[in-house]
């Protein structure tokens, strides 16, 4: 097949073949004179004398050369000179006319006829000796003027320039897109050989990829299928190669070096085109180039001299040099004007980016969306639950508390949102449909809940469930499941402890003369017996410390269960809770319930217990409480007699008890207790306890105050409609008398001594301020005696006149003491503390008047007068 009249079917025919092809052009025989510019004749050819030096003098004019492989390796003297011949021509065109200058002529002429394709001259130079003449003038200049690098640059230019012209001349094609065009000669060859797939970016004409590797394999170029682009490119390449003389090997060798970056650039320009191929292609270019090139060159009528270039040993070392000597910018500028020149940095960045894209895409598509959904679902199943109030209790309740009871966004919605962020899809992927992504994730969460439900329950039958630690290894799984046992305490030790406990009990009992065999109903509730801050004695009488602590935990468990029931709207049954409180338990000398209140956590749980108890149970509980008040640890702690030196933590305990348990009692009494019930509680208190001791403690005094003031209020409350029955009234008087008798002659003892109050003030101003003290600033605290005056006021209110007289008689000193203290405060005080002193004085009067007002008196400005 003739390709535009160019018969390339005989690569080994030597120079003669080329000429014949030319002349065989059907339209018009090629006349040499027309094709030859005649430079050799008209141009000034000085320095011809250097020709021999440059090319050797062994060759006569007119000698035929075999440029192909027909004669094997280039070994004779004639070969280098032959190479120089065509190279000389290249120089000539590059240096004198330059590619740009020569091109216009061809471009215009080419489409019309081959005759006018004047640019065939370079080809001619391969087959004739004539160009040798015209190169002469130029040749000598190079050594003088140009450096090696410049020389190489020129070679590159001509390498590019010449094919450029030829292509248009041959093809008669409209100008090609510059992209594939400019560097096609370089990029094409190695790509085609190394990585056919990668080559097509360089062939914008749509060349079928499979066509590429074929020609180099020795297929005659004429037989190439229509993709007209290919043969010219080969041709160009062949030309380019031929133009490089064997003597100037760098120039030739720069082909591969140029190729590798270019190949990458092309791929980067069109990253959508199989980016995977980019790296292997570029990486393999230099080394792979050497081997495939010989056949390629041969197929395209390469000069025999190229065979030498093919040897890898020469290629490798020089490729680097030539890369350095090839300024990228100039290449870019001349060839890819549409694109901004890439700096070295830009190029590196592109490379890095490409590598990144490559990395990302390497495993893309390995999993289907269904697979991903599956993974997501199982991952999510670890963090969702179908029973949030059980397994996610803290979070759920915390959020409700934080929002003040308003349930915000659903837990599942939150999880979906959070997980979406995790997975990096929160922007919704390619279509930016964040809402869709969220919806999808929400449905995933829903499904995950199902998965979680099916998940074998931890600590139940299937310990090593298949989904345990789903999709992530819990390295310490074994330890967390089967932790090493604590040190094993020998059984004997326990017995020793028991012995010790019982020994203490024995001692305690013998000391207090308690009859151990008597039933609990006959418990002796002497408050004097256990006046010790040390609670061990009391605890040991109610089952021991560990028993009480375990009781508290049982109570908590019951309460939590009941609360869970309440949340789910089910009926609650307080029977178990009631039993766990051991209030009616007679097996212990001191009710375990009283001991429960010895611990802060026992006190704290009380309000929650009260939520589930019915009124009868509450009354029983309080009856038990008031009956055994003397055993209550907090009474002992808060009494100045038993605990004259309270610590900060003890004060806090007192504070806690007041704010938690006293509050419950007050609210219960005021909301639902009947008069007789209040009387019953008061009776229990008076009958079973040493009231005078209890009244020395703040808590005890508060409790008594609460009971009598509540009773007094009910009695006086006319709006109740029902006047007290005579039975009620008489029992009230009876009980009051009992109480008063117990307190009589000891009423002054309710006032703690000076040392005690000052200690409390000191302790609480060092630690956390408690309600035990009052003051405008932390520096000026003083003991708050209001609870005492409240007690006296309510006692006086319920008593008759003779009771009031007794009270006043007994506490007269305290009354006047308070008044004088109040007056003293204002007198000897510097001006700057006047304010504080005035406040303190007012407070003292205010408290005192609580009591005095009951009897129609008022203390003011150091004097007591009748209340008007």
């Amino acid at each position: 097949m003739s390709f535009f009249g160019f018969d390339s079917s005989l690569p080994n025919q030597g120079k003669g073949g080329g000429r014949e092809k030319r002349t065989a052009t059907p339209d018009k025989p090629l006349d040499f004179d027309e094709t030859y510019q005649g430079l050799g004749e008209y141009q000034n050819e000085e320095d011809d004398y250097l020709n021999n030096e440059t090319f050797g003098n062994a060759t006569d004019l007119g000698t035929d050369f075999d440029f192909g492989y027909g004669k094997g390796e280039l070994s004779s003297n004639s070969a280098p000179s032959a190479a120089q011949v065509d190279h000389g021509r290249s120089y000539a065109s590059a240096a004198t006319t330059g590619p740009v200058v020569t091109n216009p002529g061809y471009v215009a002429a080419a489409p019309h006829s081959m005759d006018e394709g004047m640019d065939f001259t370079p080809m001619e130079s391969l087959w004739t000796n004539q160009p040798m003449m015209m190169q002469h003038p130029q040749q000598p200049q190079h050594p003088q003027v140009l450096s090696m690098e410049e020389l190489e640059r020129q070679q590159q230019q001509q390498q590019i320039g010449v094919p450029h012209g030829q292509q248009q001349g041959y093809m008669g094609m409209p100008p090609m897109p510059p992209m594939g065009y400019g560097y096609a000669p370089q990029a094409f060859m190695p790509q085609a050989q190394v990585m056919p797939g990668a080559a097509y970016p360089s062939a914008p004409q749509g060349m079928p990829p499979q066509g590429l590797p074929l020609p180099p394999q020795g297929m005659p170029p004429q037989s190439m299928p229509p993709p007209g682009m290919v043969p010219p490119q080969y041709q160009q390449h062949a030309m380019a190669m031929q133009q490089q003389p064997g003597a100037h090997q760098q120039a030739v060798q720069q082909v591969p070096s140029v190729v590798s970056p270019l190949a990458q650039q092309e791929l980067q320009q069109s990253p959508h085109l199989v980016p995977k191929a980019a790296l292997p292609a570029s990486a393999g270019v230099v080394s792979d180039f050497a081997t495939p090139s010989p056949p390629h060159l041969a197929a395209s009528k390469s000069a025999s001299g190229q065979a030498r270039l093919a040897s890898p040993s020469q290629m490798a070392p020089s490729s680097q040099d030539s890369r350095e000597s090839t300024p990228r910018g100039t290449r870019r500028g001349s060839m890819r004007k549409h694109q901004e020149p890439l700096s070295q940095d830009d190029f590196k960045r592109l490379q890095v980016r490409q590598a990144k894209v490559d990395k990302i895409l390497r495993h893309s598509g390995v999993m289907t969306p269904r697979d991903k959904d599956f993974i997501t679902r199982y991952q999510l199943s670890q963090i969702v639950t179908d029973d949030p109030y059980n397994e996610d209790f803290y979070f759920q309740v915390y959020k409700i508390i934080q929002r003040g009871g308003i349930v915000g966004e659903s837990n599942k919605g939150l999880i979906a949102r959070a997980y979406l962020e995790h997975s990096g899809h929160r922007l919704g992927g390619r279509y930016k449909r964040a809402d869709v992504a969220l919806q999808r994730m929400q449905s995933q969460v829903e499904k995950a809940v199902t998965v979680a439900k099916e998940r074998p329950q931890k600590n139940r039958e299937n310990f090593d469930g298949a989904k345990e630690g789903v999709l992530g290894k819990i390295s310490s799984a074994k330890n967390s499941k089967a932790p090493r046992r604590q040190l094993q305490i020998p059984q004997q030790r326990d017995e020793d402890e028991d012995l010790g406990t019982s020994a203490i009990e024995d001692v305690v009992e013998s000391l207090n003369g308690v009859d151990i065999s008597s039933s609990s109903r006959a418990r002796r509730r002497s408050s004097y017996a256990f006046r010790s801050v040390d609670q061990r004695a009391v605890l040991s009488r109610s089952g021991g410390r560990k028993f009480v602590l375990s009781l508290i935990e049982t109570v908590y468990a019951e309460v939590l269960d009941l609360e869970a029931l309440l949340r789910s709207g089910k009926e609650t049954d307080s029977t178990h809770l009631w039993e766990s409180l051991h209030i009616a338990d007679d097996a212990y000398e001191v009710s375990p319930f009283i001991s429960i209140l010895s611990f802060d956590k026992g006190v704290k749980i009380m309000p929650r217990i009260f939520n589930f108890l019915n009124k009868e149970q509450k009354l029983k509980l309080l009856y038990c409480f008031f009956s055994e008040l003397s055993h209550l640890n907090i009474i002992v702690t808060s009494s100045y007699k038993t605990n004259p030196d309270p610590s900060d933590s003890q004060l806090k305990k007192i504070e806690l008890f007041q704010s938690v348990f006293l509050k419950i009692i007050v609210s219960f009494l005021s909301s639902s207790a009947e008069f007789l019930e209040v009387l019953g509680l008061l009776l229990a208190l008076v009958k079973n306890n040493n009231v005078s001791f209890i009244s020395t403690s703040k808590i005890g005094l508060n409790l008594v105050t609460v009971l009598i003031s509540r009773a007094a209020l009910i009695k006086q409350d006319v709006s109740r409609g029902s006047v007290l029955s005579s039975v009620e009234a008489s029992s009230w008087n009876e009980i009051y008398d009992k109480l008063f008798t117990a307190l009589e002659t000891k009423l002054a003892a309710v006032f703690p001594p000076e040392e005690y109050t000052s200690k409390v003030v000191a302790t609480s101003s060092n630690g956390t301020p408690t309600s035990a003290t009052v003051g405008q600033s932390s520096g000026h605290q003083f003991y708050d005696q209001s609870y005492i005056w409240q007690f006296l006021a309510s006692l006086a209110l319920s008593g008759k006149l003779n009771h009031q007289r007794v009270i006043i008689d007994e506490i007269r000193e305290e009354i006047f003491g308070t008044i004088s203290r109040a007056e003293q405060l204002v007198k000897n005080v510097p001006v700057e503390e006047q304010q504080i002193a005035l406040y303190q004085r007012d407070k003292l009067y205010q408290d005192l008047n609580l009591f005095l007002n009951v009897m129609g008196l008022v203390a003011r400005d150091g004097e007591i007068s009748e209340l008007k």
Partner: protein
Amino acid sequence: MLFFSFFKTLVDQEVTVELKNDIELKGTLKSVDQFLNLKLDNISCSNESKYPHLSSVRNIFIRGSTVRYVYLNKNMVDTNLLQDAARREAMSARK
């Protein structure tokens, strides 16, 4: 689930995380998972001069196993509720 549940309540709060390599990072907790891996935002390193490479890091993902402590503000924790939650967990394990 207790600690996971607990740490979920700390999301969007500022915490200080001490890692087992002694680095201390203060930042806003963005998310936590069942392994107690943490995501922190707007982090600052308490010893920046020692770990200058962290000075330009704004957010960070911390593998849960590398955490030694998480320092919390006192008022971020409802201790009573936490006690309840711990009891519930113990109860559900017992059943």
